């Protein structure tokens, strides 16, 4: 099995934990796993990506443009910014709630509807996730990463089951956050695909 996933978002959204959980679960099932994340200055509220490459030995850290099987977009504009990494006909799962940078508040604007419509037109398969509503359902704004994992597993987009990734989470998430993350996963897993629906 070979699979490349690109996670795109904003520093602070938890893309690093999400990519590590995907890689860790795959590794425990016997796959080779490689990841690469943005750490340091660029991380402070800036655009970030995490790369997850499953299967294949001695593989390079970064996914080539046009090769990713799956684009996991934590934020609409960041999903569009990294869209060219997706292979033709690849799948995009995107949180539809924007994080407006200060530059956009200072007058640059944010064309949310245009960006979402563009993503829908470009992607082979596109799933919109209303992260805001789901975070409210969980009762925390900081669990979008695990909600997204729930959606991905439910849609069979990752090479493991709900039980397998929950086992990894039990081991790798600090005890005090476990209940919250399990709830977030469950909410994501129960989410109904609104592709072609609401937006």
């Amino acid at each position, binding site marked *: 099995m070979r699979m490349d996933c690109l996670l795109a978002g904003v520093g602070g959204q938890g893309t690093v934990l999400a990519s590590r959980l995907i890689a860790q679960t795959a590794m425990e099932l016997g796959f*080779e796993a490689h990841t690469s994340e943005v750490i340091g200055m660029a991380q402070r509220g800036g655009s970030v990506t995490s790369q997850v490459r499953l299967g294949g030995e001695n593989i*390079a850290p970064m996914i080539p443009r046009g090769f990713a099987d799956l684009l996991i977009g934590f934020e609409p504009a960041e999903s569009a910014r990294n869209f060219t990494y997706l292979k033709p006909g690849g799948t995009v799962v995107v949180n539809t709630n924007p994080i407006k940078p200060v530059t956009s508040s200072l007058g640059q604007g944010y064309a949310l509807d245009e960006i979402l419509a563009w993503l829908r037109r470009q992607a082979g398969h596109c799933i919109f996730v209303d992260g805001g509503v789901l975070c409210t359902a969980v009762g925390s704004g900081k669990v979008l990463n695990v909600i997204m994992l729930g959606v991905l597993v439910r849609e069979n987009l990752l090479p493991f089951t709900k039980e397998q990734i929950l086992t990894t989470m039990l081991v790798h998430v600090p005890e005090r956050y476990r209940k919250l993350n399990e709830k977030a996963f469950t909410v994501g897993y129960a989410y109904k695909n609104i592709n072609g629906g609401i937006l």
Partner: protein
Amino acid sequence: MAKKKLLMGNEAIAFGAIRAGVDVVTGYPGTPSTEVLETIAKHRPSDVYVEWSINEKVAMEVAAGASCAGARTLVTMKQVGLNVASDPLMSLAYIGVKGGMVVLVADDPGPISSQTEQDTRHFAQYAHLPIFDPESPEDAYLLIGEAFQYSEKYHTPVIFRPTTQICHACASIVLEDYADKHSIEGFVKDKKWVIFPRLSYENHIRIIKQERLLADVFSEFSYNRLAGDMKATYGIISNGVSSAYLREVLKDTKDRVRTLSIATPHPFPEKLAVRFLDGLTDVLAIEELDPVLEEALLKICGKYHLNVRIHGRLTDETNIAGANRYENVREAIDHFIGRAPGVRKPCEVMPQLPIRPPVLCAGCPHRASFYSVKLAMQRTKQKAIFTGDIGCYTLGNAKPLDMVDTCLCMGADITMAQGLHRADGSVKQIAFIGDSTFFHTGISGIINAVYNETDITVIVLDNATTAMTGHQPHPGTGLTMMGNSHEKIYIDKVLAGCNVKCIKKANPLHLEEAISMVEAAVAYKGVSVVIFEEPCIGLRKPRPMPYVDAEQCIGCQHCIKEIGCPAISSVENDQVVIDSNLCYGCGLCSQICPVGAVGGAEE
């Protein structure tokens, strides 16, 4: 029992150093090197000593001392840190070591988080020291052990040089339980430890001879890999992460070429390179930063009169700057082979995307510090130049704060301000320095300013941690990497000891008080300092969020335009909202709202 773990390159290096029997580990935080020392501190056997030193020069010298007593030592830093530590390193190359000493210097092609794209391989050549380049986290785990062995065997410090894409990449790595055991003999008095001109002449001859010997030894080193098609007339030489991209490209293109992957760029494995070049007509060099491999091959072609064309940076066939990726490696190989580049179907024109540079976090005390200085200078109608430094607070240069006019290197805010003052005494000079940077190289600048009777104001942004690199302790915190807690070294006491007569302290989140302290300090003729004390938000829980009263908000967006907090954004009618997920309740916005619409923490 061996176990497989998902490890970051820096963690793999740390476990590799423990496996190699390291005794003493020193360093100064710097992206992308920081996690090596942190991982050793977390997983160290009880007899391993670990410290964050106050700067890289100190770290290098502490390790040198331990090493000449027979301890195995590791020093960690980023590439620009080696500039600070170059003085002890250059001399240590002559003096040599007893216990294996590995100097880990992480290079940052891109650069992702650095001032320069300098190439540490040159430093190794310049200092006549062996250097090891890992090509993956898996490789790094074992290669660091080789570095220790070579260092101890040849009594020389050895540089180990991972790059960002190795340091911050994760791979599944099989960890062995094995740790190399050895005993520390202790320091044995001998004239060889005292650097003197006569001794240095002899040592110079010794290290050049050893350099030649190592070039031969490295020609047989198993990590220098000659592979591919031995009948091919085209060859590709590479190192580090570029070798991983090269492998991936060749898997896709199925090009029949000969490859040479170099783990020891210095001393360059000359005999191996001659075997590689034998029968080739053309070679492409794929490397990041400077054309070190390319120049080594050119030299060999000249020396041996080989008729091989060398392609790469010097022929403008590869990138001049930046990190390598699959795409540009592929492009260079397509061009080298003479194949038309693959064309990607262009996608529909993308809607305009907001630019998203890194910013100071919501609630960051630096925002309030910068803003109070800005207001103080506006109110007193004084012109000022704001010299900045290395840390999160470099981000104070972004609009709307726009409060960093210069940034050069660690500690240079205080010293550049002095030069600016000498050039134009009519403008106020205000220097910004963080607490960790103050201890790193700030103090010498303070002493220079006091000694030479300069008129500058220094703002110390004391957030009680080394924030940018991920919250490392420093002397001002009193915490050590051995888990001890002792009395802090107080910045105001250090300043008083340096004869600074005007020292003010304030909490930057109390805006009016902060402004008046800055006004008083700037009015003082001579060296004045304001210490702004408020911990980084990474060290505290969020406070209650201020509440925007929609009845009162007049939509002037003063809060957005003045402080640029990422938690505040505008909605309909230009009114503002605060994002409860981002707000840390610093309260700065409630203090600047002209109509008092932001205030009263939400119950």
